[in-house]
């Protein structure tokens, strides 16, 4: 059973979102997602200052097996990316919810974050997928 931290918000497409004290958000893919994808070998991150609408493809994670899109969980601007992942994509396998974060965004409307899935709802979603 995958780990689903209760303090985070989630999307159906397996991104996690953490709200920071300054109102920005940090985004990554869930432990469940990294487990399905397998060993990461390349991660293509968005450019900083790029603007995305919720649901836009904004990054790509490539495991040995396949390439998979990562979607912007909300509408806003990318303000930072995790440069460490360029040389150590396996960090996403090892620590998906912390050092394996992918990018930070400044949301256009903070209200959008509240509409994301709770940990409980996400845990239900992956339980359904597994059966």
């Amino acid at each position, binding site marked *: 059973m995958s780990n689903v931290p209760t303090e985070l918000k989630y999307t159906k497409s397996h991104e996690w979102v953490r709200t920071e004290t300054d109102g920005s958000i940090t985004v990554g893919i869930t432990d469940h997602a990294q487990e399905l994808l397998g060993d990461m070998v*390349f991660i*293509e991150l968005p450019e900083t200052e790029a603007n995305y609408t919720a649901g836009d493809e904004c990054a790509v994670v*490539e495991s040995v097996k*396949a390439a998979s899109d990562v979607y912007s969980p909300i509408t806003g601007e990318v303000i930072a990316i995790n440069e460490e992942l360029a040389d150590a994509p396996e960090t996403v396998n090892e620590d998906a919810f912390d050092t394996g974060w992918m990018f930070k965004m400044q949301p256009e409307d903070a209200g959008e974050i509240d509409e994301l899935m709770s940990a409980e709802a996400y845990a239900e979603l992956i339980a359904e997928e597994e059966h």
Partner: protein
Amino acid sequence: MSPSPSLAQRTPLYAQHLAAEAKMVDFAGWEMPIHYGSQLEEHHQVRNDAGMFDVSHMVVLDITGSDATDFLRYLLANDVARIQTPGKALYSCLLNERGGVIDDLIVYFMAEDKYRMVVNAATRDKDLTWIRQQVLSPHKKGRNVKIRERDDLAMIAVQGPNARDKTHAALGANINAARELKPFFAADCNDSKSDLFVARTGYTGEDGYEIILPAEQASATWEALLAAGVKPIGLGARDTLRLEAGMNLYGQDMDEDVSPLEAGLNWTVAFTPEDRDFIGRAALTQQKTDGPANKLVGLILEDRGVLRAHQKVITEHGEGEITSGSFSPTLGKSIALARVPTAATEHCQVEIRGKQLAARIVKYPFARNGKSLFD
């Protein structure tokens, strides 16, 4: 992830896969292990030590009868007359009249009237239909050839620099007859307890064995190998290992519309002796005279990214396509096999998600016997 279809077949080693916590997937109608935790670790395990693959889904055919040699000389693009030594193996394509590849296979000579052939699981039905049609084709009428599918057998491939030593340790006197085998030879190893057909062949670019054995002996043999330190390896690592070794995968690097001459398999077509009639000969002879339009090459990506099948390759001499691509764990870079215009050399661009990335055109294999062949 979609659940495995309930109709999928299971090999005699299904319980062993579950016990080793395999992630099971549907492959050609079989429930097979894709990995047992980490595909990368499994890949390195085979390059550096020893790993084993359940390949019981592959199809074993015994071809017997006084006309078996003549029949196979007509059926296959390579010439079984080259292997008239007991146990000797030959890689060949099975061609259609257009010179397209129906399947690739290994055939073992056991005796003049007895051969064993191993073909792909995904092509089982069409291979059997085609082969049986050829036995019955009008100008072969009355020939004494029998094709028997051995679905009573399982198959385990043990591969890696320590694979043979560990197999000897695990199976002891049972495989004495295999110890002195040269590469690409097989031997029957029978005693009161077991009945193993052991071949020094494989699909990884490493030394090792492929062991064909009765289904009911598969789990005990697997457990003995496991106890000797041979780790289970999934189909995921099997694919990256064969790609690094520059070995074609049927359905990906060649198919019925591609000739062996455009798939880097010229060496497997025996044009001599000139009086041997084989299926596809006329088409290949024509293609050889005209010069094939395309060739299969290796690519190493110089930019960051991962090469994948069907990405477009742009060369000075026209466009091509990647047929197999992945990340190479041994090189630490992305590699691919690609079909490109015959004149293309040295450099090309690969289109990945709308961007053109630089790649080097190379001669494969990329890695063999534990080592990268490139810097």
